[in-house]
Structure formats: structure tokens, C-alpha cells
């Protein structure tokens, strides 16, 4: 300085080491390795291919034209079969009844395979209902006594509110009341007919002036799930009978006579299985029998999530590519160049994770978006009923599947960084995600253990593909086969993200601490 010479300054522009440059470098690496690009395309193709294979190998079991599944007021598939003793009601009004008994028959349950036995059906329902019409899928609100869940107020198939608990008997009868005021219906229950408690209010938008009001009995099938690859679901038909008295009807339009209808046609059964619904009245006492259920229809078709079985095949390919994105650098010694150029190792790992995650997400998003409509139409052609799904749900299934594959690729990258050996890393990640799913669905493990596997392991992420909600008030086979998972969609995905975050943390720590 004291000599007064000019300070030397290179004319070359200083190389930037920003994060964008790192991203660009990693993207160039990915783009120029043919195997990785081909692998990502293969992942997208196998997703479609496996979906088509599954569709080709699946024909619906209903011979001839399948029954049309009615849709409820909100567009969801519904089951709407029950026995209905009804009269018309014009404008506002109410109906009040007393129920003194509810008994049920179960046909050929597993412990008595040759008999029809009398036992409690937990969600058998008997009570009063206000329904738009006797058309299946029309709007309704009902207050009912159930087999073992107390009094409930239910409306429009999916809504359920608890009233007073406990079973009904001659010694402890239940009084039920349902009041219509415009589009609003209010349900009440009482133990003695004088002290009434309000259960809830239902808003049935667009309810016509004349509706059908009356007594109903529904009796859903008794569902049993056996675990394992040879397992499955068995449904045992049931029938319930209820006794009503003190029936009082207020309002206009009543003809004074009751009409009995099997809503949804005669119940299944036949001469050997006398499940016919019906009612008879004597001295103001009504005995009503019925089968079927008023509830969302949840099993017996395919959900859009189940068209994405190819996710498993794509997952394996994506894991291989994700692992090699880092292990190949170790094998070729490229990692030393990479870390010399970008000495801040945590950022190098972050850039790699972003590149592999984004590329996988885009490829998987396109694959899932194409697979669903193709496989849905192939399944429909094979006679399958496809559950309707809102576009929001479909978007969540598609984006969730893409995110699942993207996060799995990042997990593979992290595990590859930790283990450095492709063989060990690929196996670890595949075993961690796919094996719990296989154990949960195709092993002798009991239902409880299987559910925990799908809560605690990375396989929980497949919950993003669930497209039908679970309802506590509906006894259905909530199995993975039917597209149901024990965790809510994003919570399940969160489990995979948590494992990935943990693995990335360990990878970043080790990458900094170890020699390359």
C-alpha cells in the first residue's frame, strides 16, 4: 500500500456461488445422465401400465347390468333402502312417536353359519323420518333409536348427531319427535313424553312443500373382515323389527292412512331368507320391519385412489433414481468436485433434494393425472362402479400421489447420502415403504396390528390416495383393499415427510462431518 502500486484486480468476473447456481448445477447433472431421465420416464409409464394391467384383470362380479347406485343431495353415492310407512305432509308440521322395542335378526353369522339368530345390530335404526319423496337418494332427516348407539338424529346420509344413550326396551321406551319448519327440521327425544331434549337441527335446502313423513326401519348388513391375502369381507344380511305407539301427527295434507313402501325395491333375500319389510297397525300400535340402510355407499365399487396401484412400481423406480443421484457421485468420485465447487455442503444437499423432488413431482403429477381417467374408463368398461369424487378430492389424490413419490425420492437421496452404498440405500427405502404395506394387507397380522403399521411406518403416506371419507356411524369394511387407511390423508403423508426430514437432517450432519 505504501508503495502506491495499484491493487491488482482480475478482469474476470467473480464466479457466483449462490443457491441458484447450485440448483442449476444439480439440474444439469440430472438432465445429462441418460439413465436418470429414462428412469423418471419409466416411473411415469409403469404407473399407467400397472393401472391398465389391474383394470384388464378386474371384471365386476355383478352378472348382467349392474344396479344403478343412487346419488345423495351432495352428489355422493348412497345406500337408500329401508321400510317406510308414510303419509304426505304439506307445509310445516311434526310427528311424535314412542318406541318400545327394537330387535334384529342376523343371517348365518360366522359363529352360527347355518342359522338365522336374534342379536343386536349396532346400527339398526327405527324411528321417524321426513323425506322429500320415496325416490332413492332424496333429501331426508330422521330421528331414530339404534341397536347399540342410543338415539341419533341423521340427515342427508352423511350427517349424524347423538341423542340420549342406552338401548330401548318396554321398560325404558323412547319418545322421538321431528318438527318441520320451512327447510329446517329439528329432532327431539324424551324418556317420558313430557320432558323433551333437542338433539339437533338439519337444514334441507330446497325441500318441497309436500314431503313424506312416517315411521321407518333400516337394518344394515353385519360386516366381518378377515385379514390376510386369502382374507376378505363377508356381509351378513339382517332384518330389524320395531314397535311404535302413541303416534301423533300434526300438520296439513294427511290422508289419515299409512302407505307402506320398501324404498329401493324389495330387500335381498328370497323364500329361504324371509327378510321382507312390512308393517301392521292395530289399536294405534305399529309393528314395522325392514332391512337395508340409509347411509353413504362405501364399498362395492372402485375409488379413484385404487386406480393408482402403479404407484408402487413407480415408487421403486423413483427410489432407485433418487439414491443414485447421490451414490453415483460417491462411486465416480464426482462428489469431491461437487463439494469443491460448493463447499457449503448442507446447501449442496438441499439443491439436490429440490432438483430430484421437483423433477419427480412433475413426472408423477402428469402420470397420475393421465392414469386416473384412463383406468377409470377401462374399469367402467369391465362393469365396475366408480365412486364419484369431487374435483377437489381428485386433485388431492393426484397431487398427493405426486408428492408421495417426490418425497420418497428425497428420502432415497437422504438415505443414499447416509449409507453411500446404492444397494443398501435402495433396499432400506423400498423395504421401509413397500413392505409395511404388504405386511398390513397380505399377512396374517390381525386388523389392529395392520392399522398400526399404516400409522407408524412411511407406508402411512398411501393415505393420500383415500378418496372416500370414513363415517363412524356406518359399519362398513374400512379396509385398505376398499381404499380406506387408518390416518387422514395429509396426516399419513406427514408421517413420510417426518421420516424424510429426519433422514435429511442426519444426511446433512454426516455430509458435513465426514470426508467426501
Amino acid at each position, binding site marked *: 500500500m505504501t508503495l502506491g502500486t495499484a491493487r491488482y484486480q482480475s478482469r474476470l468476473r467473480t464466479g457466483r456461488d449462490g443457491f441458484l447456481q447450485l440448483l442449476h448445477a444439480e439440474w444439469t447433472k440430472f438432465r445429462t445422465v441418460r439413465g436418470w431421465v429414462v428412469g423418471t420416464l419409466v416411473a411415469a409409464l409403469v404407473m399407467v401400465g400397472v393401472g391398465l394391467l389391474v383394470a384388464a384383470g*378386474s371384471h365386476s362380479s355383478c352378472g348382467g347390468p349392474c344396479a344403478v347406485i343412487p346419488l345423495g343431495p351432495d352428489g355422493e353415492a348412497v345406500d337408500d333402502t329401508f321400510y317406510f310407512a308414510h303419509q304426505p305432509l304439506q307445509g310445516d308440521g311434526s310427528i311424535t312417536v314412542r318406541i318400545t322395542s327394537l330387535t334384529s335378526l342376523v343371517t348365518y353369522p360366522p359363529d352360527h353359519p347355518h342359522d338365522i339368530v336374534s342379536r343386536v345390530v349396532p346400527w339398526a335404526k327405527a324411528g321417524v323420518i321426513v323425506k322429500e319423496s320415496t325416490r332413492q337418494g332424496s333429501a331426508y332427516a330422521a330421528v331414530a333409536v339404534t341397536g347399540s348407539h342410543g338415539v341419533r338424529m341423521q340427515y342427508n346420509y352423511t350427517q349424524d348427531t347423538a341423542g340420549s344413550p342406552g338401548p330401548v326396551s318396554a321398560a325404558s321406551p323412547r319418545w322421538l319427535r321431528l318438527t318441520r319448519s320451512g327447510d329446517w327440521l329439528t329432532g327431539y327425544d324424551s324418556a317420558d313424553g313430557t320432558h323433551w331434549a333437542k338433539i339437533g337441527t338439519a337444514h334441507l335446502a330446497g325441500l318441497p312443500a309436500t314431503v313424506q313423513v312416517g315411521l321407518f326401519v333400516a337394518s344394515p348388513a353385519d360386516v366381518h373382515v378377515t385379514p390376510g391375502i386369502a382374507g376378505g369381507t363377508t356381509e351378513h344380511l339382517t332384518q330389524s323389527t320395531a314397535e311404535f305407539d302413541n303416534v301423533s301427527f300434526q300438520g296439513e295434507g294427511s290422508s289419515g292412512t299409512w302407505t307402506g313402501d320398501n324404498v329401493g325395491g324389495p330387500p335381498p333375500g328370497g323364500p329361504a331368507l324371509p327378510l321382507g319389510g312390512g308393517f301392521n297397525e292395530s289399536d294405534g300400535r305399529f309393528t314395522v320391519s325392514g332391512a337395508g340402510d340409509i347411509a353413504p355407499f362405501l364399498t362395492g365399487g372402485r375409488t379413484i385412489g385404487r386406480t393408482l396401484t402403479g404407484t408402487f412400481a413407480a415408487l*421403486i423406480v423413483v427410489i432407485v433414481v433418487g439414491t443414485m443421484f447421490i451414490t453415483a457421485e460417491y462411486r465416480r468420485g464426482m462428489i469431491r468436485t461437487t463439494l469443491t465447487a460448493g463447499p457449503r455442503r448442507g446447501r449442496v444437499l438441499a439443491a439436490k433434494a429440490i432438483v430430484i423432488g421437483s423433477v419427480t413431482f412433475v413426472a408423477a403429477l402428469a402420470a397420475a393425472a393421465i392414469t386416473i381417467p384412463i383406468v377409470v374408463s377401462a374399469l367402467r368398461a369391465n362393469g365396475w362402479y366408480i365412486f364419484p369424487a369431487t374435483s377437489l378430492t381428485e386433485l388431492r389424490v393426484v397431487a398427493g400421489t405426486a408428492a408421495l413419490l417426490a418425497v420418497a425420492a428425497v428420502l432415497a437421496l437422504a438415505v443414499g447420502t447416509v449409507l453411500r452404498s*446404492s444397494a443398501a440405500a*435402495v433396499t432400506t427405502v423400498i423395504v421401509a415403504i*413397500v413392505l409395511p404395506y404388504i405386511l398390513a394387507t397380505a399377512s396374517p397380522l390381525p386388523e389392529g396390528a395392520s392399522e398400526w403399521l399404516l400409522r407408524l411406518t412411511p407406508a402411512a403416506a398411501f393415505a393420500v390416495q383415500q378418496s372416500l371419507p370414513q363415517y363412524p356411524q356406518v359399519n362398513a369394511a374400512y379396509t385398505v383393499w376398499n381404499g380406506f387407511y387408518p390416518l387422514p390423508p395429509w396426516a399419513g403423508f406427514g408421517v413420510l415427510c417426518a421420516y424424510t426430514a429426519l433422514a435429511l437432517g442426519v444426511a446433512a450432519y454426516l455430509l458435513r462431518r465426514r470426508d467426501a
Partner: protein
Amino acid sequence: MRQALHAEWTKLRTVPSTGWLLLACIALTVALSIVVAAAVICPSSGCELDPAKVSLSGIVLGQAVVVILAVLAMSGEYSSGMIRVTLAAMPRRITVLAAKAAVLTGAVLAAGSIAVLASVLAGQLILPGHGLSLSLADEPVLRAAAGSVLYLGLIALLSLGVAAAVRDGAVAIGVVLSLLYLFPVVAQVVTDPDWQQRLQRIGPMTAGLAIQATIGLRSLPISPWAGLGVLAAWRWQP
């Protein structure tokens, strides 16, 4: 051939991961078998569970470790360049491959025997408390146990063959695990019984593990897959 065997044995023995992987195979197999055996419940009214299959459930996990071991035995040579030395010393490539296969299968069979024996003995102790009975003295149980050991050996051969064909370790593992794990997943979703049976018959895991059944017997269709492993090896070039 004796020299080839000796060379391959030395290689396998001196790679530190071999011992760990064989130990891991035993530990994981036995651990999962114990967990499944402890979790199953058979009500007094009877159930359709196969006690031998239950006590050998851990094989589905243990086989993954065998796949790593077998793939590494092959792809490790390629990634380190050792394969050129090996083939320079022993130009008869089929001999090298046969020696590798023999040594590897021997090691896997030894570890597999320990894993299977321990699993069955654990099942014999645990299962009676859950309403199932199992005895190694029964001939079908003995066949299930011996078959499971053989199954692990065949998985090693299949993995070695695939690794020889594709050379890259990660890809080889991906291919083998796809073959093993995808068939049961897809077979579940397919509903037509003949498709389901076809998939389970050609899937190496579902077909191979049929040997574990002691009720509702089926034949062992794994041999085509061992054949495939050997077939793949024919494409083996440095």
C-alpha cells in the same frame, strides 16, 4: 474350479459387509417372525391361519438383506473395477459366475438355516399361547422350514443373475425387489381369480413362499425363476 471357489470365498469373506449382512438377515428374519407370531390371535372357534407360515413371516424381510448381499457380490466388482482383475485371472467367465454363485448360496443357506430354525423355534414357544400349535417334528413343518431356507438361496441366485445382467447395484436391487414385492400388491387389487392365480404363480415371492404352506398344499413353481437367474447370467460380459 477349486481355485475359483477359493478366490470367490476369499473375496466374500474379506469384505466387511458380508458378515454384517448375514447377521442382519438372521436378526431381521427372526425379529419379524417373533413380532408376527406374538401379534396373531386365533379365536377358540378356530381360524384359517397356517402356523408354519405365521412363524416364518420374517422371511419377507430377511430376503431383502439377501438381495443386498447377492447384488453387492456382483456389482461391487463392477463399481470398483475388480472385475477386470478377476476375469484376467480366470478367463473362463462361466466358471467365475458358478464359483460366485456356489460360495454365495452356501453362505446364504447357512445363515438362512439359522434364521429359519430360530424363527420356527420361537413360533413353537409363542404360538401355543395364541391358539395355534406348531412342532418342528411334523413333516409338513419340516418341509416348510427347509423350503424357506432353499427359498433364500434361490433369491440369492436370482439377485446375482440380475446383478450380472444389469451391473449397476441400485438398478439390480430395484429390479429384484420389484419382482418380489410388486406381484403380491398387484395380485391383491386384481379381482379375476384366474388373473390373481396367474400373478401369484409367476411372482417369485408369492410362488416361492408357497413352500411355507402346510395347509392347502401347492407345488413349488420357483424353478423357472432360478432358471431365469441363470439365463440372465448368460448375458454377462465385462
